[in-house]
């Protein structure tokens, strides 16, 4: 089953208003080829779930610059001054989620877990409106799962059926984000034959991947 397609084909069924998981830490491990493809296709009004918005003019910052994002769920926007400006100006809505909680929520969404109890955020503004549940005398916030229409993934190596390997800290959110979307589109720096990756070294099983393009 060869999942390698053109970027045109990979993105043709998307539409305005989608919720998209986009990994990356600052500007490492960001699926920039797919982001540029989205801009070329003209899709807008997007809900982005990411850790941050890269840096000005790169990665997710391109979507910010082109005004394609309606709402962003993330832990940090400080590394992109343009995002900060647009949030302050009311052009982008933002919901901040602590970085570890973001990981837990997306993983829960991808793993059929209905919610997780975390100490993170207790007694802070993040706790507002969330149930506090006590387990064995300790209090925790109940955080709900996150799931998206689409996930964009940046891999170092992909075999043609979608088994993926990430490189160093470019792995970051890619591994979890690949589990929690209806449609998973991968860009890979290198596409290899099936069998070229050691079964113990594969970070993301091919069964999670729908399409692959060259990064």
């Amino acid at each position, binding site marked *: 089953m060869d999942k390698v397609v053109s970027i045109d084909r990979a993105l043709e069924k998307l539409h305005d208003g989608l919720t998209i998981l986009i990994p990356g*830490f*600052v*500007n*490492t*491990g960001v699926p920039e080829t797919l982001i540029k493809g989205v801009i070329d296709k003209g899709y807008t009004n997007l809900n982005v779930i990411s*850790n*941050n918005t890269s*840096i000005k003019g790169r990665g997710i910052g391109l979507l910010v610059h082109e005004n394609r994002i309606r709402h962003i769920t*993330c*832990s*940090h*926007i*400080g*590394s992109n001054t343009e995002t*900060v400006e647009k*949030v*302050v100006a009311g052009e982008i809505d*933002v919901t*901040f989620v*602590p*970085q*570890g*909680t973001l*990981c*837990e929520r*997306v*993983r829960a969404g991808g793993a059929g877990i209905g919610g997780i109890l*975390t*100490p*993170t*955020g*207790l*007694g*802070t*503004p*993040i706790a507002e409106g969330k149930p506090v549940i006590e387990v064995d005398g300790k209090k925790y916030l109940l955080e709900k799962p996150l799931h998206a229409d689409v996930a964009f993934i940046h891999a*170092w190596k992909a075999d043609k059926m979608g088994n993926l390997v*990430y*490189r*160093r*800290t*470019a*792995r*970051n*959110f*890619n*591994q*979890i984000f690949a589990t929690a979307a209806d449609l998973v589109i991968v860009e890979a720096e290198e596409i290899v034959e099936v069998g070229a990756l050691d079964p113990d070294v594969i*970070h993301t099983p091919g069964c999670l991947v729908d399409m692959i393009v060259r990064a």
Partner: protein
Amino acid sequence: MELQGRDLIAYRTARFFEDGDLVNLGIGMPTQCLNFIPQGIDVWIDSENGVIGLTGAPQEGEEFDPNVVDASGAVSKLRTGGCCFDSFTSFGLIRGGHVAATVLGAYEVDQEGNLANWTVPGKTVAGMGGAMDLVSGALKVIIMTEHCDKRGNPKILKKCTLPLTAAAEVDYIVSELCVLHRTEKGLVLEELAPGVTAQDVISKTDAVLIIPETIGSMIKE
């Protein structure tokens, strides 16, 4: 030893680390601790973006891998024996009590161990990043801070006024004047910088301090 100011803070903070500890250092002042790790102590640096063992920026002209970045997104180097993992695993280590200490700065910190260091309403909209998880999860939470803000106002308060990063999680506060230990009973003045008196600290602190009969020195030989 002629340490003072931020160097003194970094020097003293680095003395909290034990051999083999996994330690997370916040961006900025906390990374200066690396200049003061005592001999014989091998500390491993945890970066919340999914890596243990970063050693800092490559030298000018040195080869590097652009995929190896630190918690600020800057290119770094990975030492032998270091390893990489995903962000979910990373925060599992942090919240699970596998990180011996996290070192962060503060806008405000108070005598109940509350910390505010992520937002000033109406002024900053950066987001909390990993700070809330780090402060809730690390075994020891050490705040490195100048004792007062730029206008000379106390940063160590009875009660934080800014939105919190975490409640009742701070263990130690290290400033250029002293080391404060947050205990069940309150903030204990455990150590003083050379030439600084308890009265000096009290006059620059809003929080109520517990003053023991003997107070140690921040400088140890």
